[in-house]
Protein backbone atom coordinates (compact mmCIF):
# COMPACT_ATOMS: atom_id res chain seq x y z
CA UNK A 1 0.00 0.00 0.00
CA UNK A 2 1.51 3.32 -0.99
CA UNK A 3 0.84 6.55 0.87
CA UNK A 4 0.36 9.96 -0.71
CA UNK A 5 2.88 12.63 0.22
CA UNK A 6 2.30 16.28 -0.46
CA UNK A 7 5.29 16.79 -2.76
CA UNK A 8 5.38 19.71 -5.14
CA UNK A 9 5.64 18.05 -8.50
CA UNK A 10 7.64 20.85 -10.07
CA UNK A 11 10.71 20.49 -7.86
CA UNK A 12 10.82 16.91 -6.62
CA UNK A 13 10.16 14.89 -9.70
CA UNK A 14 12.29 11.76 -9.48
CA UNK A 15 14.74 10.89 -12.19
CA UNK A 16 13.92 7.67 -13.96
CA UNK A 17 16.56 5.49 -12.32
CA UNK A 18 15.84 6.58 -8.75
CA UNK A 19 13.44 3.76 -7.85
CA UNK A 20 16.02 1.17 -8.85
CA UNK A 21 18.68 3.12 -6.95
CA UNK A 22 16.54 2.97 -3.85
CA UNK A 23 15.95 -0.76 -4.31
CA UNK A 24 19.66 -1.41 -4.73
CA UNK A 25 20.50 0.68 -1.67
CA UNK A 26 17.94 -1.28 0.33
CA UNK A 27 19.57 -4.51 -0.71
CA UNK A 28 22.91 -3.30 0.64
CA UNK A 29 24.51 -1.74 -2.46
CA UNK A 30 26.89 0.91 -1.03
CA UNK A 31 27.35 2.64 -4.39
CA UNK A 32 23.59 3.06 -4.71
CA UNK A 33 23.36 4.52 -1.22
CA UNK A 34 26.20 6.92 -2.00
CA UNK A 35 24.32 8.00 -5.12
CA UNK A 36 21.26 8.69 -2.97
CA UNK A 37 23.42 10.75 -0.61
CA UNK A 38 24.85 12.76 -3.51
CA UNK A 39 21.35 13.34 -4.90
CA UNK A 40 19.99 14.74 -1.64
CA UNK A 41 23.09 16.14 0.10
CA UNK A 42 22.54 19.68 -1.09
CA UNK A 43 18.97 19.81 0.16
CA UNK A 44 19.74 18.24 3.54
CA UNK A 45 22.91 20.27 4.08
CA UNK A 46 21.11 23.50 3.14
CA UNK A 47 18.31 22.89 5.61
CA UNK A 48 20.91 22.38 8.33
CA UNK A 49 22.89 25.40 7.22
CA UNK A 50 19.90 27.77 7.08
CA UNK A 51 18.68 26.51 10.41
CA UNK A 52 21.97 26.42 12.33
CA UNK A 53 23.86 29.12 10.44
CA UNK A 54 27.14 27.18 10.71
CA UNK A 55 28.68 25.00 8.06
CA UNK A 56 30.37 22.63 10.51
CA UNK A 57 27.12 22.03 12.39
CA UNK A 58 25.21 21.74 9.14
CA UNK A 59 27.62 19.05 7.99
CA UNK A 60 27.27 17.18 11.29
CA UNK A 61 23.51 17.41 11.01
CA UNK A 62 23.45 16.23 7.40
CA UNK A 63 25.71 13.31 8.28
CA UNK A 64 23.42 12.35 11.16
CA UNK A 65 20.39 12.52 8.86
CA UNK A 66 22.01 10.20 6.31
CA UNK A 67 23.09 7.79 9.06
CA UNK A 68 19.50 7.66 10.23
CA UNK A 69 18.42 7.06 6.65
CA UNK A 70 20.86 4.18 6.39
CA UNK A 71 19.32 2.57 9.47
CA UNK A 72 15.76 3.17 8.25
CA UNK A 73 16.08 2.38 4.56
CA UNK A 74 13.61 -0.47 4.90
CA UNK A 75 10.88 1.95 5.93
CA UNK A 76 11.31 4.21 2.87
CA UNK A 77 8.47 3.42 0.49
CA UNK A 78 9.55 5.20 -2.67
CA UNK A 79 11.65 8.05 -3.99
CA UNK A 80 9.06 10.73 -3.14
CA UNK A 81 8.85 9.39 0.37
CA UNK A 82 12.65 9.52 0.59
CA UNK A 83 12.73 13.25 -0.16
CA UNK A 84 9.89 13.93 2.24
CA UNK A 85 11.57 11.80 4.93
CA UNK A 86 14.94 13.55 4.58
CA UNK A 87 13.42 17.05 4.77
CA UNK A 88 11.32 16.09 7.76
CA UNK A 89 14.18 14.51 9.70
CA UNK A 90 16.63 17.31 8.85
CA UNK A 91 14.21 20.08 9.89
CA UNK A 92 13.17 18.39 13.11
CA UNK A 93 16.73 17.47 14.04
CA UNK A 94 17.81 21.07 13.47
CA UNK A 95 14.97 22.38 15.64
CA UNK A 96 15.94 19.86 18.30
CA UNK A 97 19.61 20.91 18.19
CA UNK A 98 18.69 24.59 18.34
CA UNK A 99 16.47 24.09 21.34
CA UNK A 100 18.87 21.81 23.17
CA UNK A 101 22.04 23.76 22.61
CA UNK A 102 20.20 27.07 22.84
CA UNK A 103 21.89 28.50 19.78
CA UNK A 104 19.01 30.85 20.01
CA UNK A 105 17.16 32.88 17.56
CA UNK A 106 19.91 35.46 17.32
CA UNK A 107 22.70 33.17 16.15
CA UNK A 108 24.49 35.35 13.63
CA UNK A 109 25.46 34.16 10.22
CA UNK A 110 28.96 32.78 10.67
CA UNK A 111 31.90 34.80 9.55
CA UNK A 112 32.70 34.13 5.95
CA UNK A 113 29.46 32.28 5.56
CA UNK A 114 28.88 31.00 2.12
CA UNK A 115 26.26 32.85 0.24
CA UNK A 116 25.44 31.42 -3.14
CA UNK A 117 26.99 33.31 -5.99
CA UNK A 118 24.59 36.08 -6.90
CA UNK A 119 22.68 35.87 -10.10
CA UNK A 120 22.55 38.77 -12.47
CA UNK A 121 19.21 40.15 -11.26
CA UNK A 122 19.68 39.88 -7.51
CA UNK A 123 21.06 41.96 -4.71
CA UNK A 124 23.80 40.10 -2.78
CA UNK A 125 23.55 42.44 0.20
CA UNK A 126 19.81 41.88 0.43
CA UNK A 127 20.27 38.13 0.19
CA UNK A 128 22.83 38.16 2.97
CA UNK A 129 20.65 40.33 5.20
CA UNK A 130 17.59 38.20 4.59
CA UNK A 131 19.58 35.10 5.58
CA UNK A 132 20.75 36.88 8.72
CA UNK A 133 17.24 38.01 9.58
CA UNK A 134 15.96 34.51 9.04
CA UNK A 135 18.43 33.42 11.73
CA UNK A 136 16.67 35.72 14.17
CA UNK A 137 13.37 33.87 13.90
CA UNK A 138 12.38 31.16 16.37
CA UNK A 139 13.52 27.63 15.45
CA UNK A 140 10.02 26.52 14.45
CA UNK A 141 9.34 29.63 12.38
CA UNK A 142 12.78 29.32 10.76
CA UNK A 143 12.08 25.70 9.84
CA UNK A 144 8.75 26.70 8.30
CA UNK A 145 10.40 29.44 6.21
CA UNK A 146 13.28 27.20 5.10
CA UNK A 147 10.94 24.43 4.01
CA UNK A 148 8.65 26.92 2.28
CA UNK A 149 11.15 29.12 0.46
CA UNK A 150 14.21 26.90 0.11
CA UNK A 151 12.61 23.51 -0.41
CA UNK A 152 9.45 24.91 -2.03
CA UNK A 153 7.26 22.68 0.11
CA UNK A 154 3.57 23.48 0.29
CA UNK A 155 1.82 24.28 3.55
CA UNK A 156 0.37 20.77 3.94
CA UNK A 157 3.77 19.10 3.65
CA UNK A 158 5.35 21.55 6.08
CA UNK A 159 2.55 20.87 8.56
CA UNK A 160 3.07 17.13 8.21
CA UNK A 161 6.84 17.37 8.42
CA UNK A 162 6.91 19.57 11.49
CA UNK A 163 3.83 17.99 13.08
CA UNK A 164 1.98 21.25 13.48
CA UNK A 165 -1.49 22.37 12.33
CA UNK A 166 -1.77 23.90 8.87
CA UNK A 167 -3.05 27.14 10.37
CA UNK A 168 0.03 27.37 12.58
CA UNK A 169 2.22 26.99 9.50
CA UNK A 170 0.29 29.72 7.72
CA UNK A 171 0.53 31.92 10.78
CA UNK A 172 4.32 31.38 10.99
CA UNK A 173 4.72 32.29 7.33
CA UNK A 174 2.60 35.41 7.61
CA UNK A 175 4.25 36.67 10.79
CA UNK A 176 7.75 35.86 9.56
CA UNK A 177 7.19 37.64 6.25
CA UNK A 178 5.84 40.68 8.09
CA UNK A 179 8.83 40.68 10.42
CA UNK A 180 11.29 40.25 7.56
CA UNK A 181 9.67 43.08 5.58
CA UNK A 182 9.76 45.28 8.65
CA UNK A 183 13.43 44.55 9.26
CA UNK A 184 14.28 44.99 5.62
CA UNK A 185 12.58 48.41 5.62
CA UNK A 186 14.28 49.29 8.91
CA UNK A 187 17.64 48.37 7.45
CA UNK A 188 16.76 50.43 4.36
CA UNK A 189 17.17 47.38 2.20
CA UNK A 190 13.78 48.03 0.71
CA UNK A 191 11.38 50.94 0.85
CA UNK A 192 7.77 50.87 1.91
CA UNK A 193 6.74 51.89 -1.56
CA UNK A 194 8.21 48.72 -2.96
CA UNK A 195 5.86 46.54 -0.92
CA UNK A 196 2.90 45.08 -2.76
Amino acid at each position, binding site marked *: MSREFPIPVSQHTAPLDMPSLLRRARS*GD*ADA*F*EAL*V*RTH*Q*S*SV*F*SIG*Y*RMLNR*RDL*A*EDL*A*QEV*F*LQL*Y*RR*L*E*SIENFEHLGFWLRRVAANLAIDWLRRAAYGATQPLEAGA*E*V*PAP*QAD*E*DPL*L*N*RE*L*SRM*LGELSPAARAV*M*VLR*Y*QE*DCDVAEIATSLEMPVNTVKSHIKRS*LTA*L*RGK*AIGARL*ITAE*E*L*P
Partner: protein
Amino acid sequence: MNDVEAELRRALRPVEPPPGFAERVMRALPTQRPMAAVTPLPIARPTPPVNAWRRLSTPVALAASLVVAVLLGQHLAFERAQREQRAGLEASRELMQALRVTSQKLDAAYQAVQSAPAGAQEDEENRS
Protein backbone atom coordinates in the same frame (compact mmCIF):
# COMPACT_ATOMS: atom_id res chain seq x y z
CA MET B 1 12.27 44.62 -5.55
CA ASN B 2 8.64 44.37 -4.61
CA ASP B 3 8.43 40.83 -3.38
CA VAL B 4 10.13 39.66 -0.19
CA GLU B 5 9.03 36.13 -0.94
CA ALA B 6 10.86 36.10 -4.25
CA GLU B 7 13.94 37.54 -2.59
CA LEU B 8 13.71 34.89 0.11
CA ARG B 9 13.63 32.20 -2.53
CA ARG B 10 16.73 33.65 -4.11
CA ALA B 11 18.48 34.06 -0.77
CA LEU B 12 17.66 30.52 0.27
CA ARG B 13 19.00 28.77 -2.78
CA PRO B 14 20.43 25.39 -1.80
CA VAL B 15 24.05 25.40 -0.71
CA GLU B 16 26.43 22.63 -1.65
CA PRO B 17 28.09 20.80 1.25
CA PRO B 18 31.91 20.84 1.53
CA PRO B 19 33.79 18.65 -0.95
CA GLY B 20 34.06 15.02 0.10
CA PHE B 21 30.88 15.12 2.17
CA ALA B 22 29.38 11.97 0.60
CA GLU B 23 32.64 10.08 1.10
CA ARG B 24 32.70 11.07 4.78
CA VAL B 25 29.12 9.89 5.17
CA MET B 26 29.99 6.56 3.57
CA ARG B 27 33.00 6.14 5.87
CA ALA B 28 30.83 6.87 8.90
CA LEU B 29 28.29 4.18 8.03
CA PRO B 30 28.28 1.10 10.22
CA THR B 31 29.88 -1.91 8.52
CA GLN B 32 26.64 -3.84 8.55
CA ARG B 33 23.19 -2.35 8.12
CA PRO B 34 20.68 -3.54 10.72
CA MET B 35 17.97 -5.46 8.92
CA ALA B 36 14.42 -4.65 9.86
CA ALA B 37 12.17 -7.28 11.36
CA VAL B 38 14.68 -10.11 11.23
CA THR B 39 14.03 -12.77 13.82
CA PRO B 40 17.10 -14.80 14.71
CA LEU B 41 16.65 -18.49 14.09
CA PRO B 42 17.09 -20.75 17.09
CA ILE B 43 20.51 -22.32 17.22
CA ALA B 44 20.33 -26.07 16.62
CA ARG B 45 22.34 -27.81 19.30
CA PRO B 46 23.28 -31.52 18.91
CA THR B 47 21.37 -33.59 21.41
CA PRO B 48 23.27 -36.36 23.22
CA PRO B 49 22.08 -39.95 22.47
CA VAL B 50 19.57 -41.09 25.08
CA ASN B 51 19.18 -44.72 26.24
CA ALA B 52 15.85 -46.14 25.04
CA TRP B 53 15.02 -47.45 28.51
CA ARG B 54 15.76 -44.09 30.12
CA ARG B 55 13.60 -42.39 27.53
CA LEU B 56 10.69 -44.81 28.20
CA SER B 57 11.14 -45.32 31.93
CA THR B 58 8.89 -42.50 33.01
CA PRO B 59 5.87 -43.43 30.88
CA VAL B 60 6.29 -47.13 31.75
CA ALA B 61 6.43 -46.34 35.46
CA LEU B 62 3.34 -44.17 35.16
CA ALA B 63 1.43 -46.92 33.29
CA ALA B 64 2.48 -49.59 35.83
CA SER B 65 1.39 -47.38 38.72
CA LEU B 66 -1.96 -46.88 37.05
CA VAL B 67 -2.49 -50.65 36.54
CA VAL B 68 -1.51 -51.43 40.15
CA ALA B 69 -3.87 -48.76 41.44
CA VAL B 70 -6.77 -50.15 39.37
CA LEU B 71 -6.13 -53.77 40.48
CA LEU B 72 -5.81 -52.76 44.11
CA GLY B 73 -9.05 -50.84 43.90
CA GLN B 74 -10.83 -53.83 42.38
CA HIS B 75 -9.46 -56.17 45.04
CA LEU B 76 -10.55 -53.93 47.89
CA ALA B 77 -14.02 -53.60 46.40
CA PHE B 78 -14.30 -57.39 46.04
CA GLU B 79 -13.17 -57.92 49.64
CA ARG B 80 -15.73 -55.47 50.94
CA ALA B 81 -18.53 -57.16 48.96
CA GLN B 82 -17.51 -60.56 50.35
CA ARG B 83 -17.49 -59.23 53.88
CA GLU B 84 -20.93 -57.69 53.48
CA GLN B 85 -22.29 -60.94 52.01
CA ARG B 86 -20.95 -63.00 54.94
CA ALA B 87 -22.39 -60.57 57.44
CA GLY B 88 -25.79 -60.75 55.70
CA LEU B 89 -25.81 -64.56 55.76
CA GLU B 90 -24.87 -64.59 59.43
CA ALA B 91 -27.65 -62.14 60.27
CA SER B 92 -30.14 -64.22 58.30
CA ARG B 93 -29.07 -67.41 60.10
CA GLU B 94 -29.40 -65.77 63.52
CA LEU B 95 -32.84 -64.43 62.61
CA MET B 96 -33.99 -67.90 61.56
CA GLN B 97 -32.64 -69.36 64.79
CA ALA B 98 -34.49 -66.73 66.82
CA LEU B 99 -37.72 -67.40 64.97
CA ARG B 100 -37.31 -71.13 65.49
CA VAL B 101 -36.82 -70.70 69.25
CA THR B 102 -39.77 -68.37 69.50
CA SER B 103 -41.94 -70.82 67.59
CA GLN B 104 -40.95 -73.66 69.92
CA LYS B 105 -41.78 -71.54 73.00
CA LEU B 106 -45.17 -70.62 71.60
CA ASP B 107 -45.93 -74.24 70.80
CA ALA B 108 -45.04 -75.27 74.36
CA ALA B 109 -47.25 -72.57 75.82
CA TYR B 110 -50.15 -73.54 73.61
CA GLN B 111 -49.80 -77.16 74.61
CA ALA B 112 -49.76 -76.18 78.29
CA VAL B 113 -52.96 -74.18 77.92
CA GLN B 114 -54.76 -76.96 76.10
CA SER B 115 -53.86 -79.62 78.63
CA ALA B 116 -54.93 -77.66 81.80
CA PRO B 117 -58.22 -78.98 83.86
CA ALA B 118 -61.63 -77.23 83.32
CA GLY B 119 -62.17 -76.17 87.09
CA ALA B 120 -58.94 -74.41 87.13
CA GLN B 121 -60.13 -72.54 84.09
CA GLU B 122 -63.39 -71.39 85.81
CA ASP B 123 -61.57 -70.23 89.00
CA GLU B 124 -59.33 -68.28 86.81
CA GLU B 125 -62.30 -66.61 85.06
CA ASN B 126 -64.07 -65.78 88.45
CA ARG B 127 -60.91 -64.17 89.80
CA SER B 128 -60.65 -61.93 86.85
